[in-house]
């Protein structure tokens, strides 16, 4: 049984001028020990999806369809009190903006012990001991537990949040763009830290990012999200080596390769689809260089591959499309 199983999950936001379907019919399995990268550009529904998993959607957001099965239990139907007990204990988070995720008026140490004491019967002293061990683990000085968040640098705050996320040894950690707000040097330090910690961690992780190179470094599976849907899912090595969806091909082109030959980066022209309108046909049709008439209406066929799946109407000629996608002329508008 998978640790986390998303079955046809849709999430809608109610807006003053209608509805916005931020996540549309998403299915995803996270097995024990998996590190799943969730990639996609801004506004594709990544953050909404993970907030949906732990039931932290804003008041105008709602899971309108599907189920979120975590260890056999549908989290989307769980009442607040029961969900609350699972939060952090079973599923913890490394938040997008660690800068603002610590409350400015409490000492960092107390913010870590707060979550330990909330879920475990432990004395304050023992909780603080645990916090000290966690700080050792993420490479922060124990004495800094006494400090307030404003006395921390951005990288330190991110480490503190990582320490906090490990506090209760959760089965799943959701890292929402953990390196986005940091400068490149600190970014790579934090990534190394996360990678090192994953070595000794038996649980699973969902790593949300818009940086494909982060996925390549850290994850074993990748889910590519576009316009509210996971359009391709599979083993990282296979997806990056042999992408099946034209969007993944484009995404791969847009990032520099460290080991491969040196070539110009190719960007994907256009903008993501407007999710407040119903989309007919392929979500990527307006930006896809390979678009045909059959892409423009109906549901895209679901194609299963060795390690995952993808949705593309031209699934029978993917190998040919992949060759074309390597050429920059293909992406010219």
């Amino acid at each position: 049984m998978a640790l986390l199983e998303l079955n046809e999950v849709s999430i809608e936001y109610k807006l003053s001028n209608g509805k916005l379907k931020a996540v549309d019919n998403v299915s995803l399995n996270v097995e024990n020990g998996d590190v799943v990268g969730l990639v996609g550009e801004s506004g594709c529904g990544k953050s909404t999806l993970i907030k949906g998993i732990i039931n932290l959607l804003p008041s105008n957001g709602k899971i309108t369809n599907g189920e979120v099965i975590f260890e056999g239990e549908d989290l989307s139907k769980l009442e607040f009190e029961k969900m609350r007990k699972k939060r952090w204990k079973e599923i913890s988070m490394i938040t997008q903006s660690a800068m603002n995720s610590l409350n400015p008026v409490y000492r960092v140490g107390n913010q870590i012990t707060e979550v330990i004491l909330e879920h475990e019967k432990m004395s304050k002293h023992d909780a603080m001991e645990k916090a000290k061990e966690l700080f050792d683990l993420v490479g922060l000085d124990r004495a800094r537990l006494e400090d307030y968040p404003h006395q921390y640098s951005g990288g330190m705050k991110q480490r503190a949040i990582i320490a906090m996320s490990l506090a209760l040894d959760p089965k799943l950690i959701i890292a929402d763009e953990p390196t986005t707000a940091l400068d490149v040097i600190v970014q790579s330090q934090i990534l190394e830290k996360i990678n090192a910690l994953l070595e000794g961690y038996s649980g699973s992780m969902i790593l949300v990012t818009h940086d494909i190179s982060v996925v390549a470094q850290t994850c074993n599976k990748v889910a590519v999200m576009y316009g509210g849907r996971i359009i391709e899912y599979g083993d990282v090595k296979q997806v990056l080596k042999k992408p099946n969806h034209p969007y993944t091909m484009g995404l791969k082109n847009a990032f520099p390769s460290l080991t491969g030959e040196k070539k110009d980066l190719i960007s994907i022209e256009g903008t993501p689809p407007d999710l407040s309108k119903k989309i007919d046909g392929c979500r990527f049709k307006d930006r896809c260089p390979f678009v045909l008439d059959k892409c423009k209406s109906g549901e895209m066929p679901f194609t299963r591959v060795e390690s995952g799946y993808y949705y593309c109407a031209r699934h029978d000629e993917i190998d040919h499309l992949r060759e074309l996608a390597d050429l920059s002329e293909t992406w010219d508008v």
Partner: protein
Amino acid sequence: MRMTKYILKRLSIVALTLFILLTIVFFMFRVIPGDPVSMFIDSGLDKESQELMMKMYGLDKPLWDQYVIYIKGVLHGDFGNSFTYSKPVLDVIGERFLNTLVLTTTSLLIAFSVGITAGSYLAWHRNTKIDLFGTVMALIIRCAPVFWTGMILLTVFAFKLDWLPLGGMTTVGSNFTSFWDKIFSLDFLKHLILPAITSALYSMATPTLLMRTSMLEVIKEDYIELAYAKGLSDRNVRIRHAMRTALLPVVTIFAVQAGLAIGGSVLVETVFRWPGMGREIVLAVASRDYPMAQGAFLFIGFTTISFNLLADVLYAYLDPRVSL
């Protein structure tokens, strides 16, 4: 240690501020047309007697000499004698000042504790009917003049229901061994309720609305989302994380509100015949009772500055980002 140093520094600023205040008040009253003799002595008084009185009050001396004498006196704790009462100013003001202080402190405590609770409650139930009702009510109460609110409360609770006394500070004829004995008596409490509530209602809207706005800002912060992700209960998120941080701007306006409340006590004291300093000031200014007015203004200034100091220290205590 740093706190002690800070407080010492602030106290010296307080002394300087009071000195400047005293100087301004001293000269201001003497610039206003009219003098005490013409104001309260029958104008039929002959010239010699008038001059004699001026001399008695020390008003015949040059302005500068008067000023030096006054400052010297204040430094020795002597605020001069009231022209009207022919008694030392401190004797007249002393107890009245304490009466005003008890009234304003009580009303501020009510206003801020109710305001903070109500404001955070409204913010937590934002965009509901309760929120709308509460916000509108706060504005209406804020717009109502103090004397009007006071009269309404008097009509209902004193005249119609006869639950509370009409005015004054104690029942006529009651005896108390000391000031403290008095203010902790049930009789005093009964007299305190209506004026304190009247004044509190007036001061309440600002902390309520500010707390509401501040909470709405804080609720959007990432650490609130994280607090929920940590699995904290709704109550813990609201009190420990949201209210605690949202409190900061409210503390800042505490000082301002305190100043306003003491100044505004004139009306409340008049409506409820509260023997405080507010009425005394009006009388002193009207009758050009210089020492009395100067003393009263100095006390008000001192109280306002003290509340400011209190707010600053409280702020630094509540917000670790601010160091004194």
